[in-house]
């Protein structure tokens, strides 16, 4: 049975057009000048129990708005949305019992109290019995060693510790579906790894459905079998991660700082690379930020080491960084028809 069903889901916001400066602000007080923003514009998909779905897209794509409709916070402007057969908005309190939510940038824990007190409050509002509560905390303690944090005030926790506690809290009532909205934002590599293995373990042992929104393609690679890419409120891709993996898995971006950079450098770089590796080399050159030139390389076609060696010996390079392809680049490639 389908757990989550979305059909032509839409959410439109009316936003006041604000004007610049003090004069503009005063004018805004009496302004009726609204524009409609289609944050979510006709989205359809179905999610089965036990799936881990990566819901990704660039900033402002409509990810969080969709999550907020699935969790019953926002009322859709149009379309159908059903979680476990019911509309989340119209049955909010009832539906909340089967959901867990983590918002990476906020916490559900009581800021001034020791962590364990928040867990106790959640235990009461979700009517979790004592044995299940103890088992649950015991299991988390085993997985990530939380016990030492229980008596600490939430505001004294590090971001990573707090996130582990927040995730623990959202699984406390053994929900059918957990929404993780940017759970690894601002965290370092080791705590990210911890969080990923925690999520995988919970999905494996309890068959909890997980909807994950993230900016970190590493999260998606590590956790998801299915991926939904959305931009400007519309779905760009919905399917197996393997296909998308080929897009960003094989790509790397060389970030170069070239001495005496001028507009001509970019063109020269492009020309020399084409000269050396041929027309179908799968290399794109762009300047994305000041002083840095991005050379994106499809490793399936041209080895990164060759390109790096060629550039180093032909251009006065001051600094080099190698980065994985960004979310924005994946989306750009999808737009360009890379998945067709």
């Amino acid at each position, binding site marked *: 049975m389908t757990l989550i069903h979305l059909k032509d889901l839409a959410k439109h*916001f009316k936003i006041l057009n604000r004007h610049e400066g003090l004069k503009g602000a005063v004018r805004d007080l009496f302004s009726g000048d609204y524009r409609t923003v289609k944050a979510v514009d006709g989205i359809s998909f179905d999610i089965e129990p036990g799936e881990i779905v990566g819901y990704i897209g660039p900033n402002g794509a409509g990810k969080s708005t969709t999550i907020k409709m699935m969790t019953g916070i926002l009322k859709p402007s149009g379309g159908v949305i059903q979680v476990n057969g019911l509309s989340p908005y119209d049955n909010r309190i009832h539906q909340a019992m089967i959901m867990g939510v983590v*918002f990476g940038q906020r916490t559900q824990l009581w800021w001034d109290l020791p962590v364990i007190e928040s867990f*106790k409050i959640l235990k009461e509002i979700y009517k979790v019995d004592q044995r299940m509560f103890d088992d649950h905390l015991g299991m988390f303690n085993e997985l990530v060693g939380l016990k030492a944090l229980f008596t600490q005030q939430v505001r004294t926790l590090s971001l990573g510790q707090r996130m582990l506690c927040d995730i623990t809290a959202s699984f406390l009532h053994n929900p059918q579906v957990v929404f993780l909205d940017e759970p690894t934002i601002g965290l370092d590599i080791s705590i990210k790894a911890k969080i990923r293995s925690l999520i995988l373990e919970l999905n494996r042992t309890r068959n909890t459905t997980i909807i994950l929104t993230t900016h970190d393609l590493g999260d998606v690679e590590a956790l998801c079998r299915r991926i939904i890419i959305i931009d400007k409120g519309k779905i760009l891709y919905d399917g197996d991660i393997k296909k998308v993996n080929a897009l960003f898995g094989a790509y790397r971006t060389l970030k170069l700082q070239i001495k005496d950079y001028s507009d001509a450098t970019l063109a020269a770089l492009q020309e020399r690379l084409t000269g050396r590796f041929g027309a179908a080399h799968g290399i794109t050159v762009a300047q994305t930020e000041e002083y840095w030139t991005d050379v994106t390389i499809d490793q399936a076609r041209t080895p990164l080491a060759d390109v790096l060696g060629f550039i180093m010996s032909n251009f006065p390079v001051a600094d080099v960084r190698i980065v994985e392809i960004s979310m924005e680049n994946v989306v750009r490639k999808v737009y360009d028809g890379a998945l067709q």
Partner: protein
Amino acid sequence: MRGYIAFIRGAMLVGVVYRLGFLFTILGNIVYIIIAYFLWRSIYSGSDSINGLTFDQALLYVALGSTMFILLKTYTDWGMAGEIRDGTISIYLTKPIDYQLYNFFTTIGFASTSLVTVTLPTVLMLLFVFRIHIAFGVGYLFFPVSLLIAFIIGFNFDYAVGLMAFYTESIWGISITKEIFISVLSGALLPLQFFPAAIQQILMWLPFQAIYYTPLMMVTKPDQEVGVFLQMLAVQIAWAVVTYFLSRMLYNQAIKVLRVAGG
């Protein structure tokens, strides 16, 4: 219900975390009562009774009024406005709880802490340091119930003002206006007997008097007939019900304009 009781407990624990703040609240209230003492002393110089109240009754009214003011000033509206503005409200909306009841019970929790740490010490001080004379009567039995209903009405006002943040983002002006209305029109600063008769008539038909004037009169003039107190309670309850439903209706409207930041 178990869940909401947990909110009371949680809020009490938070209240205790900030225990040092209580000392300053008590200190400030004492200064206010000393000033009120001398002010009313001079108002009463040469007369035993003004507008039907003796000096002792007026002082008890004003001192207890300011103590009650601290108890009822829970900053719920400010807390809500902050949550609505920065989007934290979405956390509560993903929980199986009613937002109004959640706020009510946390407010009860905060107030319970301040009842023990601020109100009780102040009342003891009124009795044993300022030696305010009180006459006992059946009104004292009604006072706790009346205080609780007053608390509910006060909360409903706060809640409604907090909800305005859905529309206005900042509630500074609205909250200040509410404070002024309540402190003047409810008889929190001045017993309503001191207003002109015509204005008194109007005030008795407004909900504000049910917050301060009603419970305070139960202790200022406790030796009236039971029927009088029951009637006072009935009016209070009516206002509690009316303000509850109005604020709930407001929520149902306001929640529709919710727009949480973050894509």
